[in-house]
């Protein structure tokens, strides 16, 4: 695949100014913010369920204006540091998808499902701060949102290949472009100065065995993505099963038994999330 195409796609992806989100999340946060007594934690909980709002908040707090780029990977911490005033500004400037809402709703559910799975996995693996892993899970397919918003033409062609050749979304991206949303994730994370841990989770979730700095995050997101698909919760853009890399389990020192425990826990979580309506 030509370098020119890659550069063109990268430029278009990084041009993104205003990622839209789904109407429901936005309304919910706006309602909370109207309450002068609202606590930062409450707002963080709702924003933490929406991949685009979470991404925006993390982008803002890690921007050089605040003076500590690349340090903050938690939505709750971001809210403490930005303050509710700035959050109001972020919310006011966020628009909603005017088209394709239905096709995007599946991706929202998939992302939130993956975030939940990552949190369970991180706990099971004995990691100290499960939220760090769930944020990476929430944002792991952000590159797909960026493509849908910035390059609807490219997204339409990927969808065609998925349907015609019976491929996963990731395979179709690579067939068509020569790279996948994992690469777009890497560009975005770099450009927005997100912490390296988050970047590795987003950029290496399809190849956790190659993660250089934080293979633990990449492995958790990889398995989280797999488990969400096992439950067919939401949609990652295709209805294929994705392969589970055994290296990821080994990396986290988890056995198949552990995985079954997590699957059980996840079943309860997911039915709870399904109660929150999307689109």
């Amino acid at each position, binding site marked *: 695949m030509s370098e020119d195409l890659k550069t063109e796609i990268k430029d278009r992806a990084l041009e993104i100014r205003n990622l839209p989100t789904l109407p429901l999340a936005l309304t919910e946060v706006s309602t909370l913010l109207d309450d002068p007594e609202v606590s930062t934690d409450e707002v963080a909980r709702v924003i933490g369920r929406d991949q685009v709002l979470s991404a925006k908040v993390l982008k803002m707090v890690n921007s050089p204006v605040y*003076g500590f780029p690349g340090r903050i990977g938690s939505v709750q*911490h971001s809210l403490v540091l930005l303050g509710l005033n700035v959050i109001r500004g972020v919310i006011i400037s966020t628009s909603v998808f005017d088209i394709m809402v239905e096709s995007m709703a599946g991706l929202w559910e998939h992302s939130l499902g993956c975030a939940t799975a990552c949190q369970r996995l991180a706990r099971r693996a004995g990691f100290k701060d499960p939220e760090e892993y769930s944020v990476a899970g929430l944002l792991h397919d952000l590159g797909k949102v960026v493509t849908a918003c910035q390059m609807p033409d490219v997204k339409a062609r990927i969808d065609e290949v998925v349907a015609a050749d019976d491929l996963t979304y990731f395979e179709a991206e690579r067939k068509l472009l020569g790279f996948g949303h994992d690469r777009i994730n890497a560009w975005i994370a770099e450009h927005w100065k997100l912490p390296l841990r988050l970047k590795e989770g987003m950029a290496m979730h399809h190849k956790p065995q190659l993660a250089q700095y934080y293979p633990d995050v990449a492995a958790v997101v990889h398995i989280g993505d797999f488990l969400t698909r096992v439950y067919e919760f939401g949609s990652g853009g295709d209805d294929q099963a994705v392969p589970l890399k055994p290296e990821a389990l080994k990396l986290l020192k988890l056995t198949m038994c552990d995985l079954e425990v997590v699957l059980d826990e996840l079943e309860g979580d997911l039915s709870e999330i399904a109660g929150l309506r999307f689109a």
Partner: protein
Amino acid sequence: MSAIDLPRRVFLLSEDRELARTLDGLWPVEGQIAGPVVSVFARGRSALEEIFEQPPDLLLVDGRLADLPFTEVVALVKGENVYRQLPVVACLTPAAAAALDPAAVEIDDFLLLPIEPAVARARLELTMSRAARSLDANPLSRLPGNTSIISRIQNLIDLRQDFALAYVDLDHFKSFNDAYGFARGDEVLLMTARILANTVRDLGAALSFVGHVGGDDFVCIVPVELAEKACLRIIDSFDRIVPSFYDPADAVRGGLRSTDRQGQLREFPLMAVSIAVVFNLGGSLTHFGQVSAIAAGLKKKAKEKVKSSYVLDRRREGNGQPA
């Protein structure tokens, strides 16, 4: 209002008597509130010594000065780090204003000749208060600095207004700076400033203020009844966020190793916040000096604890855990 209660001084460098009269008439004496005192210098050169010895609060320079190009006066003042905070406003004819090269002449504003008194007064006031703010603001956090802090506290004391004043500083900040360098230390100070500003604002009280004394020393003013809540929130946020500012290995270990002044390897725990809170109740304080003396004593107490903690003057004490 200027921070210190001396009348502000405005210097005008101009041969134009009409202009001098207009400017002098801008601030008529109104009751108790004294406007700035305007001194007029017809010759630019003669004014320089006085400007350098006792800089005014505002310097107005006529663009038509005969003995010294006004650009030279501006360059002299703005070229010295000690004087560059002094706001300089030029009085220019429309032609001179149109020909002005803002990159070459470092003025803060200009007034068009002939000047319109009401507009001129508003713009000059604006320029002076902007200069006072930027002069006093901490260059790193841009929070108000010492002059504002002291005048705010003294004002509240004079009004016999009840308030709680929290002195906030960081434990083990020096060892963090030594291990990671100043740039990383500045990141932590900016993070701390954000936590304080947001916590205090979220209390939603009219009486609230955050200032940056310098280095890792900050102050917050909050209503008496909200002081403990503010302390708990500040400590909780700081303790949760600060590990992100360490290298991953140090964050996991819960501290860092570095050599102390004697060259000995020492272990330092993660940074923590110490807060000492002084209250003004029913006019118990009479001057600013008392506040800092009481706070110094309390700080010692707060510092005895290894973890983040707060000490309330003549009230309950806490160790960061809600009772």
